[in-house]
């Protein structure tokens, strides 16, 4: 795709004119491609003057009350850590619905809610995943060079992590999965895991993973790394290979 094509795609995305495959393509690029994000931003800025021509309409009091009720149903995001961000951002559909239903879990505390979210997502996709073919598989080796976990990536951007053997998460800690989309760059969080069982994570915010891409797991505080980079020891790592 030439830069002109990308620019046209960016502009038509901002106009809201894209349909079908092109619409999906633009959404994928917007989630993963910084050059495309910049083109979209330029068009948003160019057209922003139009928004200022809209007549102000004073909303009724009920609107704010509904918004307030909506935000009460959820804890503030700030304390959730990077993994939560990675998973939630561009998936308004199923995950959002799941999240909204999670109001039920509020009383169980943040860690419980996180675990429940992972579990719910896992169960939600369980049937689907059984029939899916992984794109890449990475066996993560621990310090003693034994297989510690298997990570599989799927075409829809989801990632399944299956701990092996007797993997244990230290009390009051989580493990955080990281990957290196750019081998020379910094690690990017894929998700925070609280229980040593198969979980589904989301890579859709990141560039499509490639073979030989490195994945690693570090031990972190319960809510994930506070810095956005690994802070605890790396307990296992491995590179992805294409699944045949």
């Amino acid at each position, binding site marked *: 795709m030439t830069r002109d094509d990308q620019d046209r795609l960016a502009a*038509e995305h901002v106009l809201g004119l894209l349909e079908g495959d092109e619409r999906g393509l633009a959404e994928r690029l917007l989630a993963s491609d910084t050059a495309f994000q910049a083109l979209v931003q330029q068009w948003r800025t160019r057209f922003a003057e139009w928004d200022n021509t809209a007549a102000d309409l004073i909303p009724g009091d009920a609107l704010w009350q509904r918004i307030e009720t909506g935000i009460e149903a959820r804890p503030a995001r700030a304390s959730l850590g990077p993994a939560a961000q990675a998973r939630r951002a561009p998936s308004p559909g199923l995950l959002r619905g799941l999240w909204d239903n999670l109001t039920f879990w509020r009383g169980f505390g943040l860690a419980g809610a996180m675990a429940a979210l992972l579990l719910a997502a896992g169960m939600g996709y369980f049937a689907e995943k059984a029939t899916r073919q992984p794109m890449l598989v990475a066996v993560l080796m621990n310090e003693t060079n034994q297989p510690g976990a298997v990570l599989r990536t799927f075409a829809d951007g989801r990632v399944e992590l299956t701990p092996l053997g007797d993997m244990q998460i230290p009390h009051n800690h989580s493990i955080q999965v990281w990957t290196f989309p750019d081998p020379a760059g910094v690690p990017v969080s894929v998700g925070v895991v609280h229980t040593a069982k198969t979980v589904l994570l989301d890579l859709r915010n990141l560039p499509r993973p490639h073979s030989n891409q490195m994945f690693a797991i570090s031990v972190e505080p319960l809510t994930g790394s506070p810095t956005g980079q690994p802070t605890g020891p790396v307990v296992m790592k491995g590179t992805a290979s294409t699944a045949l």
Partner: protein
Amino acid sequence: MKAVLGEMASPAFDLNHALGQCAQGDRVALRAIYDGEAPRMLGVAMRLLRRRALAEEAVHDTFLQIWRKADSFDPARGDARSWLYAILRNRALNILRGETRTDLVEDFEPMGLVSDEENAETLMLRLSDTGSLKRCLERLEPARRQAITLAYIHGLSHGELAGRLGVPLGTIKSWIRRSLISLRECMA
């Protein structure tokens, strides 16, 4: 005169800062954004969705997303206001394209079509003389200007634009593409 300009130029509050506060869980900051932006957002959503209940729905969903995603807002990647309106437009366009399309078509008033077309030129007049959008739109032929304006403001699809302007779909697509290139060059 200077005093008036000064007053207008000073924003009521710093949106970047308010979003940072939202990310910390500060509802007062969300309310401040709402007080500052919700009326304009409702106006933008009304032009796209035409029905008050749907427009309020779009604004409602937008503020929930602002609350949820405030911590992912990055001032280095674009300004806060543009981030807010991108969320609003996305939400409104999704409602328009996906959820209630048939509903809207049934609701279309025949008279509304005419006034929309007038609006495209009226809207031009409302654009600031000092901004480049107006100057660059003026360079386009009226029908092409109208196509791109109706797409952005009222969310018309390629097919609807073709019907409205009475030209084949392929013509609309090429009008839009050429207009975009012209706008990009003019606004660079």
